[in-house]
């Protein structure tokens, strides 16, 4: 082919490919409804999070301030990086026996990798994942949480 014709035909072809790409982008310019831009979820009250979202580990309490944790320590053993510490205490129950109950269930959110082994292996389903986000704080100590509420006790009927 004549080099001059080849030179100009390559320019035309090249411009053609650029126009093909421009067609795609300008198509969205005309149809702005197809553009998906999500805003930061400021609507906290009406926001529906996906139910399985792994935000942090929490221990659900019922209306009598009771939870299902027996303090067996399986979650502590299964945690790969030591995010969970269980401090137990011995008390004497109504029948006069001394039993082991949970004193503090310490959870280090700053170390947690959300692998889900603690929730999966918990024999009494005492801990679950909560769909919270925004864990940023200014003080690192605020990320060390106590999961059982103060003054809480174990539910009746939960076996060790």
């Amino acid at each position, binding site marked *: 082919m004549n080099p001059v014709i080849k030179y100009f035909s390559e320019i035309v072809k090249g411009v053609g490919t650029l126009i093909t790409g421009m067609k795609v982008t300008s198509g969205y310019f005309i149809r702005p409804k197809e553009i998906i831009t999500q805003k930061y979820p400021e609507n906290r009250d009406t926001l529906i999070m996906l139910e399985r*979202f792994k935000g942090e580990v929490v221990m659900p309490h019922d209306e009598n301030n009771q939870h299902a944790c027996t303090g067996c320590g399986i979650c502590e053993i299964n945690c790969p990086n030591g995010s969970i510490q269980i401090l137990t205490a011995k008390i004497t129950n109504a029948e006069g026996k001394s039993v082991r109950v949970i004193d503090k269930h310490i959870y280090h959110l700053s170390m947690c990798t959300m692998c889900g082994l603690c929730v999966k292996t918990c024999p009494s389903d005492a801990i679950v994942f909560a769909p919270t986000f925004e864990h940023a704080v200014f003080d690192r100590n605020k990320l060390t949480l106590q999961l059982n509420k103060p003054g809480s006790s174990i539910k009746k009927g939960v076996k060790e």
Partner: protein
Amino acid sequence: MVEKREIILGENEPYVINMGPQHPSTHGVLRFELSLKGETVFKVVPHCGYIHRGIEKMCESNTYQQIIHLTDRMDYLSAHPNNEAVSLCVEKALGIEVPERVKVIRTILSELGRLASHQLWWCAFGMDLGALTTFFYGLRDREKILDIFEESFGSRLLHSYICPGGLMNDVHPNFKQRIKDFIPYFRKKLPEYDQLLSGNVIFKERSRGIGMLSLEDAISYGVTGPSGRGSGFSCDIRKSQPYSAYDRVDFKEILFTEGDTYARYRVRIAEMWESMKILEQLVDQIPDGDYTAKMKPIIKLPEGEYYQSVETARGELGVYIVSKGDKFPVRVKFRTPNFSNLFAINHMAVGHKIADLVAISGSLDLVIPDIDR
């Protein structure tokens, strides 16, 4: 007697500069030590180790269930195949046959992860070459896959979902329908990728004939995955050693023989079509049944050495476990694809300009935590 010499910088000696570790086009903390003459590269020495966390050593003090969440942190853009590799290796050692449902779901997850990873690669590769538009278009489609992940596993990037024996929990009831909605959507959107970037004259000029890697060199450097298949190296583990449900699906192994950056690009675009083909075949065939095989709470592998390799989005990932019958492994070795792929870069980049080095390293689809692990 000391001879007096006058050295003019850059005249006869190579001019050495560092690219990275904070350079945006290395996609992480990787440092290239470049020897230049003018702007022409004639030696590239990659220095890795900036994000070394000692995952292999950490595995030695973790049980086999706990290893899973560490493997997420290697190739975090397609985390499922990493989990799958360890799980398959442990299952192989124990001689456990996982239920059919698990096999099919694992295959679907691997392909979804491959799609998400290739989409992000397409975004980043376009941006390496100066096309910002690709970044938004690719992330738009990747978001759909991450939503599927988030609904079923609760996390978008580091899932820790595939575990020895099966899956952590059953998939969400919407899982099937979401994939069925996604496939027609992405079939409509994938041609846009070609219109935007593949045919673009500037992109073609910058990627054709750049970073040639011949078949012999690809084999001798151990370049696997789409980067190797761009040189005609038939290295797809899914075809050669089928695992999970890959033996029952019909798909093509994409091979291009050119061996340049554009060939590696086209392999990945074609692989996205193939992944959708696999998903379409499997999504209606998820059998009912258990989501996990019966496993003991404490896994102890019998004494011996076990190896299993899978095909991740970047190449062959091998897991080698040495066990002495304890609940902890004695030694774990990961043969990660990016580590082998990276060190072919000196061979590919010699004689090109610095800007071409960015295109070459982008076409290798490097994930730095996978290199250093």
